[in-house]
């Protein structure tokens, strides 16, 4: 009985920490998530608090980018976040020139209207290997799926 009561109390407290109980520095860093914070699962809260812990060591421009994208990132589905992490993992494997090339392409691509973006894809984009990441090199494309899964450490859960 005591175990049940204790477990019940633990579950009731598991949604902690509520926003009001965060420290002032965490509140400042995680401010974009304030509205949705209390509804987040405890694992996602723990993940975001880890992000907040790393935040002070970032450059100012990195901090700005992170804060600007936090809300969008939190609003993605777990599957979208998982896929984006895989894409990012592939991107980080590129050499600096290739990374810069991808970035330049995105900067231009993102300004195009949807129909021109589709036109760039060509006839059958779905025929492209689905597992290849944004940053996958040409030679790695056929093996991108296995390489991705082998190098992946993303968990089943997606906080």
């Amino acid at each position, binding site marked *: 009985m005591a175990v049940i009561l204790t477990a019940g109390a633990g579950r009731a407290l598991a949604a902690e920490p509520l926003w009001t109980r965060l420290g002032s520095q965490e509140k400042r860093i995680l401010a974009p998530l304030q509205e949705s914070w209390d509804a987040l699962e405890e694992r996602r809260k723990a993940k975001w608090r880890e992000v907040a812990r790393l935040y002070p060591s970032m450059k100012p421009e990195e*901090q700005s980018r992170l804060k600007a994208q936090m809300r969008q990132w939190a609003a993605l589905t777990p599957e979208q976040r998982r896929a984006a992490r895989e*894409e990012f993992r592939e991107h980080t494997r590129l050499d600096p020139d290739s990374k810069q*090339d991808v970035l330049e*392409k995105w900067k231009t691509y993102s300004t195009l209207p949807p129909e021109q973006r589709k036109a760039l894809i060509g006839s059958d984009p*779905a025929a492209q290997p689905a597992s290849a990441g944004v940053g*996958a090199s040409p030679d790695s494309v056929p093996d991108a799926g296995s390489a991705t899964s082998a190098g992946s450490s993303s968990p089943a859960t997606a906080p």
Partner: protein
Amino acid sequence: MNDDQFGNSIRKILDQSLDDKAIPTRQLRAARERALAAFDAAQVVAEPVPLAALAGMGRRPSPAQGGSRGVLVRVILPAAIVLAAILGWQQWQSALHNDPEIQGLGRIDAELLKSDLPVDALIDPDFKAYLQKVRTTAPAEGTAGASESAGAIEAAGRSER
């Protein structure tokens, strides 16, 4: 009722009591069960089970049975349970923060979100397909192929402007 009828009924009762030993036995058994039930109920009052009391099923001990048990039930035990819950929660939170999986995800997300390649680029399936197309159609050219594609995008962008 005349004397004969009265005598017959008496006789019948006496005969029945002699022939049917079960009647008094059943009555005695029922009485015993009632007594036992009353005894059990008395024990519940005399020795309230603390956890039952917490669940609202117990009864407050009478003053004659001393106040220490009441203090145990009403103060110490609930306090101990609350304390155990708090300690359990703290351990759970600590385990979450020390979970290598959570820490790894935090590091990945921090790197991803501070990157100069925006999240939009990572989740846009058309952009991914476009890059894929460029690389698979010009695999031998490597960076040159990428430059070509960048040129194509820039041309498209210029035509848009």
